[in-house]
């Protein structure tokens, strides 16, 4: 390799290390983010959020918190073809997006019970559909006719006992029917 090319490569690599990071945000940028890869895989940003839900009976009695996403088994074929596993990873990304967008909401409005901004979040509506599907499909032990539930996001920190994990979000009590929206925010 010529010295000039080597120097150029070293300079480029040094720039990725030492230049300040610029984050470009916006809904259009988000949609086309594959064009702007960050390559920051598994950056140490702390434990990932974990999606949980609990059923709420007609009398308001809440059941235990359950993992929403069931385990997916991986056979040898999964080395090349793993749709269920990749869908599970996509659900994980969806939960990450929800946490990121929740951080943009006005906490005071949420505390006052004004949930319009929350209900308008696309990831929130998708997560509601996901939980609603799980509750309705029988994957979760749903005591009939209970179709009301709550969503919770906890930090998946293995150092903490399950009931001591930090809660980053807890939804109001929701109904499964309301999640089956036709696109309009509820």
């Amino acid at each position, binding site marked *: *390799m010529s010295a000039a*090319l*080597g120097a150029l*490569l070293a300079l*480029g*690599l040094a720039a*990725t*290390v030492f230049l300040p990071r610029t984050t470009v945000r*916006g*809904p*259009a940028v*988000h*949609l*086309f*983010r*594959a*064009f702007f*890869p*960050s*390559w*920051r*895989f*598994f*950056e*140490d940003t702390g*434990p*990932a959020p*974990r999606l949980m839900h609990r059923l709420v009976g007609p009398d308001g009695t809440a059941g235990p918190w359950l*993992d929403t*996403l069931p385990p*997916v088994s*991986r056979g040898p074929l*999964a*080395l*090349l*073809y*793993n*749709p269920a*596993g*990749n*869908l*599970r*990873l*996509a*659900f994980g*990304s969806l939960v990450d*997006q929800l946490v990121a967008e929740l951080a943009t909401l006005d906490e005071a409005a949420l505390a006052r019970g004004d949930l319009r901004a929350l209900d*308008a979040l*696309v990831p929130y*509506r*998708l997560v509601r*559909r*996901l939980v609603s*599907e799980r509750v309705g499909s029988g994957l979760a032990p749903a005591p009939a006719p209970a179709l009301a539930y709550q969503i919770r996001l906890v930090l*998946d*920190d*293995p150092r903490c006992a399950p009931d001591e994990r930090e809660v980053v979000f807890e939804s109001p009590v929701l109904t499964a029917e309301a999640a089956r*929206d*036709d*696109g309009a925010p509820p």
Partner: protein
Amino acid sequence: MSPETLVLDVTARLVGLACALQALELLALRPAWGKGGVFAFAVLRDDLRALPAALRPLLGRLLDAPGFGVVLRVRLLAALITLATAHPAALPVLLATHVLVSLRWRGAFNGGSDAMTLVVLLGLNAAALSPALARGALLYIALQAALSYFIAGVVKLRGPRWRSGSVLTEIAAAERYQAPALAARLLARPAVARTAAWAVMLFDTCFPLALLGPRLAFMFVAAALVFHLLNTWLFGLNRFLLAWAAAWPAVIYAGALLGG
């Protein structure tokens, strides 16, 4: 056949295989993106507000349930043609359908693997425009591949929990990745986790050395194959294996070209 033509041929066949498997996976996931699915377009339509109004009706047709199934079948066909013949005619179709699939999943279905597939498709499409662009296109793919490892390594090196290995313990125990129990148990041992974490960080950050010569390039690509196979076994990241494999011929080409 020039070296560039040979490398482009192999790269096209590999990305064809990657895109075919990606399309088959998404076709199998129709219940998730169909009308009543979790990712129903009725909800995702709101994301398109960020795009020009004139584009939205067309995108709506292509990304809603029946249209998206057609997009995936067209993608599968183009991928199989590319895999079988490496003919450049199908490459623009692969690129266009890749962008549509990414849009359908709010920017990416599988994060980095979508980005690397896009890098390879952009390079191949540029090279197909003119033979004069072939060398630059391959260097672009090689550089992005080297950067992908290098940046991932640097951000890990900066994290104290990566340096101690505790992040690896955490990831192996995380519900999201469902690592095999044996791997989770092994990585729960601090010494094993620290050693594995440092091996990953050293491999990642040193990867640009592959561009210094063909022998180094082959060595790093062989190490990368082991690295991605382990990632697939541990964390189910199968899409990363073929997306990055499609970039490796360009890395070897760049190593030979730049390293003399």
